[in-house]
């Protein structure tokens, strides 16, 4: 069985009127099937309100499907006995790192989760050290989180998740509030965790450039998986993406325009290096 499997998952929110009476149901997730292997780097794209974040909250049992099932690391996410195992193996990182910072210095913050599950203090120290090294924040271990830049805060939040030794990290728009350098730092850290530590990454983003690094992209629309494929496949379907209120990376857009203009450039260009090679060859 794969690391994460979703089978015909449906999730409905109950809508309530002013007096709390049930007003109807809204289907946020509509028959979603997923099949994600350990070590995959997955990007989930989709317009606002398409169900991306709702789906993500199913991956560590914060929400349970109304219908269908989700298996994480072989456990049904609705199995009450397994819920803590699931939350240990799937960590979440949200848009605003400040919302998940508790400690007054970086080290304390990273130690918070393992302390909560009663891990041996020596072991915690080691985990904190390793986690901070992985996101290249070891030099700031004694700093106050409030003194850090946005990208640094977000990397501390990731280290906090890493200290739980997760098999998978779900990141919900982790760079939306960051400056260009902060974005680069966070994406670099995430890719390294995937490459070096073989941690499964599920990245939800509105930034097409970030999705280029994924092994596979899922595009959500109206609670369904509207498209899935490799970045090269997905980003060659410009019109379908635009119907989903999405776009392609700037590089891909320019390559497409140049090809239309008569230059002999292969389709599916995703990075600056690829485009330069294709033009200068």
């Amino acid at each position, binding site marked *: 069985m794969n690391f994460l499997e979703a089978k015909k998952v449906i999730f409905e929110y109950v809508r309530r009127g002013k007096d709390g009476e049930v007003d109807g149901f809204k289907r946020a997730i509509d028959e979603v099937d997923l099949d994600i292997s350990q070590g995959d780097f997955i990007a989930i794209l*989709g*317009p*606002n*309100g398409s169900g991306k974040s709702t789906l993500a909250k199913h991956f560590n049992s914060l929400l349970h499907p109304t219908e269908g099932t989700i298996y994480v690391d072989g456990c049904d996410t609705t199995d009450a006995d397994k819920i803590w195992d699931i939350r240990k193996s799937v960590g979440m990182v949200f*848009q605003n790192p400040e919302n998940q910072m508790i400690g007054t210095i970086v080290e304390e913050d990273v130690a918070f989760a393992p302390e909560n599950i009663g891990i041996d203090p020596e072991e915690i120290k080691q985990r904190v050290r390793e986690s901070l090294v992985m996101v290249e924040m070891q030099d700031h271990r004694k700093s106050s989180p409030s003194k850090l*830049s*946005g*990208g640094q805060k977000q990397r501390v939040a990731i280290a906090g998740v890493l200290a739980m030794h997760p098999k998978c990290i779900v990141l919900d*728009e982790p760079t*939306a*509030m*960051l*400056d*260009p*350098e*902060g*974005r680069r730092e966070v994406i670099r850290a995430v890719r390294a965790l995937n490459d070096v530590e073989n941690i499964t990454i599920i990245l939800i983003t*509105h930034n*097409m*450039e970030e999705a280029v690094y994924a092994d596979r992209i899922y595009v959500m629309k109206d609670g369904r998986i509207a498209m899935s494929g490799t970045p090269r496949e997905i980003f060659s379907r410009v019109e379908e993406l*635009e119907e989903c*209120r*999405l*776009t392609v*990376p*700037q*590089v891909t*857009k*320019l390559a497409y*325009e*140049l090809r239309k*203009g*008569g*230059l002999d450039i292969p389709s599916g260009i995703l990075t*600056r*290096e690829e*485009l*330069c090679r294709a*033009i*200068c060859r």
Partner: protein
Amino acid sequence: MSIIVNHVDHIYNPGTVFEKKALNDVTFSVENGEYIGLVGRTGSGKSTLVTHLNGLMKPTGGGIYYDGVDISSDGYDIKALRGKVGLVFQYPEHQLFEEDVFADVCFGPKNLGLKETEIELRAYEALKAVGIKDEQFYVSPFDLSGGEKRRVAIAGVLAMKPEVLVLDEPCAGLDPAGREEILALADHLHSSLNITVIIVSHSMDDLAEHVERILVMNDGMLVMDAPTRVVFGHRAELEAMGLAVPEVTAILSDLKKAGLPVRDDLITIEEARSEILRVFGK
């Protein structure tokens, strides 16, 4: 309304160990109807600067002048200024609170003590300006999409009839189509209503396609102030500050380095396309 920011300093917690110079001798002026981008790393002083523009914060040194008058001078009507200089903060939709969209947009002008008909006219015009449809006027703001909520929040500020509008990260968290809608709205406010628009953003690609002039803040200082194209000609300096140039500008400069005789001072996809095709004689 012309703005002059004259040698403005702002020091947080002066005289304590937490003393921090958030603004350091910042000087620039803005003519009526300009379209400006404000960039800088997190913590560079952008938000501190912006909150000075409508008198929410006062400079600890230097002064800010609107139409030649110092806003810190005795008897200056700071309340009237806040109506004229609209600030749209990050995630402004978090400030929506009324039962329906129309009531929410009426909230600001109601506080100005205007007549009922004037308030409603302003709310109507503001909602039309941001492209909200009539049938959405009386729905709960919480039933709208992310992009729509944000446009309603902007309408709330527009209903104050500002002459200057500052948008702090107006596209954060929106899908690409939503980003385009908000930026098209900023274009419209600038070109059709002649409002001075200042956009604070981390997206160089967005700014390249829209604003005419860019201010760059670094460590509390204003380090660049020039037309968009000129600012993006300084790739090395911007990258050293943790910023970036638009993706297409970076591509052109890579091509130039690889020996292709292209200009690298272009900033939009359309410009880059024509330039590369020109070099290949297409």
